């Protein structure tokens, strides 16, 4: 128990951020190499996806001989928390900031303020409603959503003979730009299959248990349901668990990202395809770009880090090892992940 009584919900995530930063900070020696510290502000300290971003960021920092500071709210829904983090950072004047904005509109103000204060902001993962940032390094979420839609249709074709029937999708929250474009991309791709009908969507508030209950209810309500798309990792955990509990073998499940649980479900065939991004590369590139920007280097305004679709068949291929489990990610030549070729087919 902390000695000082926390009286605002801001306390724990901050303490956590600081504590994690403390745990993973590089030894003192490298601190003497350079006193540049780049804050990396992510969306949710609680998802393994974001841990991979931090891992990549650390890798880049080690190579550059600088420090990073791990920051972010505990949950993607805590918009106010992330705004507060940005405000605090701006007053501290770091040389650059790497930010994964939790909300495209709400975070536009803080990003502009930082830019106005002369701090270059490198946006990673999701877009933001302003163009006053140094660079955007992200998955093209619309394209990623399309990949998910096609993957679901392919699975339905494999199991049912044709891409036809009812599908539904689980939404993390309707607030983040990346998630909204992802969902839109999914709907866009599904629109290409006239026989597929999107019958429902459920907002599960980034709560795995709720995602699970919602999935059970969807399976129950639509006995003829042929497919479900879960639009982030916690949704995938929940939907997969529901499928495992219900034994819904004939329903296709496509999910995003790659928690250990999701990969396990993928291996068992409970999840049919995982659309994996490259969070490690986002963190790595983000820090690299932020450092470059702080040195006055001009940057490309946007970089797509790409997505890859892993299926039950391809899960154990070596190219996917590092993408599915970022702890095993080997750094390949700059911005040219070796899995691209395999993943893009």
């Amino acid at each position, binding site marked *: *128990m*902390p000695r000082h*009584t*926390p*009286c605002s*919900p801001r*306390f*724990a*995530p901050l*303490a*956590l951020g600081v*504590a*994690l930063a403390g745990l993973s900070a590089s030894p003192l020696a490298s601190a003497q190499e350079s006193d540049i510290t780049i804050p990396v502000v992510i969306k*949710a*300290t*609680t*998802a*393994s996806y*974001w*841990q991979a971003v931090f891992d990549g960021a650390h890798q880049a920092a080690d190579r550059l001989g600088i420090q990073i500071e791990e920051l972010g709210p*505990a*949950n993607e829904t805590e918009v106010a928390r992330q705004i507060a983090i940005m405000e605090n950072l701006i007053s501290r004047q770091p040389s650059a900031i790497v930010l994964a904005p939790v909300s495209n509109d709400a975070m536009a103000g803080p990003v502009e303020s930082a830019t106005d204060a002369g701090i270059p902001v490198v946006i990673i993962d999701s877009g933001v409603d302003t163009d006053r940032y140094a660079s955007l390094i992200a998955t093209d979420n619309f394209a990623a959503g399309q990949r998910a839609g096609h993957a679901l249709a392919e699975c339905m074709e494999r199991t049912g003979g044709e891409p036809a029937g009812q599908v539904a999708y689980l939404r993390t929250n309707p607030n983040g730009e990346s998630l909204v474009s992802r969902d839109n991309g999914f709907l866009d791709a599904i629109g290409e299959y006239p026989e597929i009908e999107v019958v*429902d969507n*459920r*907002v*599960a*508030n*980034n*709560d*795995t*248990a709720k995602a*699970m*209950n*919602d999935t*059970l*209810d*969807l399976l*129950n*309500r639509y*006995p003829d349901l042929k497919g479900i798309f879960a639009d982030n990792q*916690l949704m995938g*955990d*929940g939907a997969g*668990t529901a499928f*495992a*509990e219900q034994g819904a073998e004939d329903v296709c499940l496509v999910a995003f990202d790659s*928690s*250990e*649980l999701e990969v*396990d479900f993928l291996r068992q065939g409970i999840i049919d395809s995982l659309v994996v991004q490259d969070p490690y590369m986002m963190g790595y590139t983000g820090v690299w770009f932020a450092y470059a920007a702080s040195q006055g280097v001009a940057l490309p305004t946007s970089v797509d880090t790409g997505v890859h679709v892993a299926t039950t068949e391809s899960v154990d291929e070596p190219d996917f090892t590092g993408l599915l489990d970022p702890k095993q990610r080997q750094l390949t030549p700059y911005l040219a992940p070796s899995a691209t070729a395999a993943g893009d087919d």
Partner: protein
Amino acid sequence: MAAHDANLSLGRRMKAPAATRTRHLRKWGLPVETLVLGLTLALWIVMALTTSTFLTANNVVNILRQVSIDSIIAFGVLFPILIRGIDLSVGSVVALSGVVCASLLTAGVPIPLAIGLTLLLGVAIGSLNAFSVYRLGIPAFIITLAGLQAFRGGAFLVSDGTSVFGLPKALSTFARAEWLGIPSLFWSMLIIGLVLHFILSRTRTGRYMLAMGSNHESARRAGINIKRIVFFAYIISSVTACIAGMLLMSRMSIGSPTAGVAYELNAIAAAVVGGASLFGGRGSVLGTFIGALLFATIANAANLLGIDSFWQMVATGVLIAAVVYVDNLHKRRQSGVK
């Protein structure tokens, strides 16, 4: 609380024609539990008639599963409420116990020992809350709000910010098991509910909790060991939260530090809608179950009817307000003629 006391003194002043009117009013002043039970039944009937999917074995089993963990947490939270306290930390304790138990298991600790240690953690957390309330005199609302923050932080620290994966098979299949066609989760809820109901309605400890919540001074003068009761109430709350945390862990087959966000509010709402008074002294395990069942039914119905998730939240909120309002009306009427 001020309003509460005002009611009392008001009641004393207008005592004259009391006896007859009280009896008359009690006839139609129905207790809130009955109302909520009626509402739940009505919802079940409407859903059964209007959808083909609601009253299926599969869906009923789903509801039973969904209501189980929520109920267990709500049963626990009921006890601090009974003694005019509150426990806001249970949602975070659910997460902490899940990741602690999962971490112990993945580190190779035998299952019974891991469960035992997690339950001990519950005892420790409950004792800490009770100590702060009873000995340090910190309001329960404040200290458990601090717990809500701290234990969530603890869950992140223990799990390094990510889900703990790789539970032994026995545990991850437990939550999926069924006995006699009824999910194991529901059995767990039933056993815990019966034990707590027994304590509350049949033992001195239970009665002293009600007495203390109803009139602290009267309980003190009656020579009741207040300290023991406070510790008991908060330990029950934390330990049941730990049990719920482990069951949720088993159901999700991961220990997740994000589990149980805002569950304390659902639990408190279930207890209150089920007839518990936030002023203490009143509430029951059965009523709490009915409250939790109503919320689970609403969530399930919203999914089956395809009602927007946000409308579901609004409806739940309106329902809580309405039930508490009706309950207050009923009580004011009662104390006004006392």
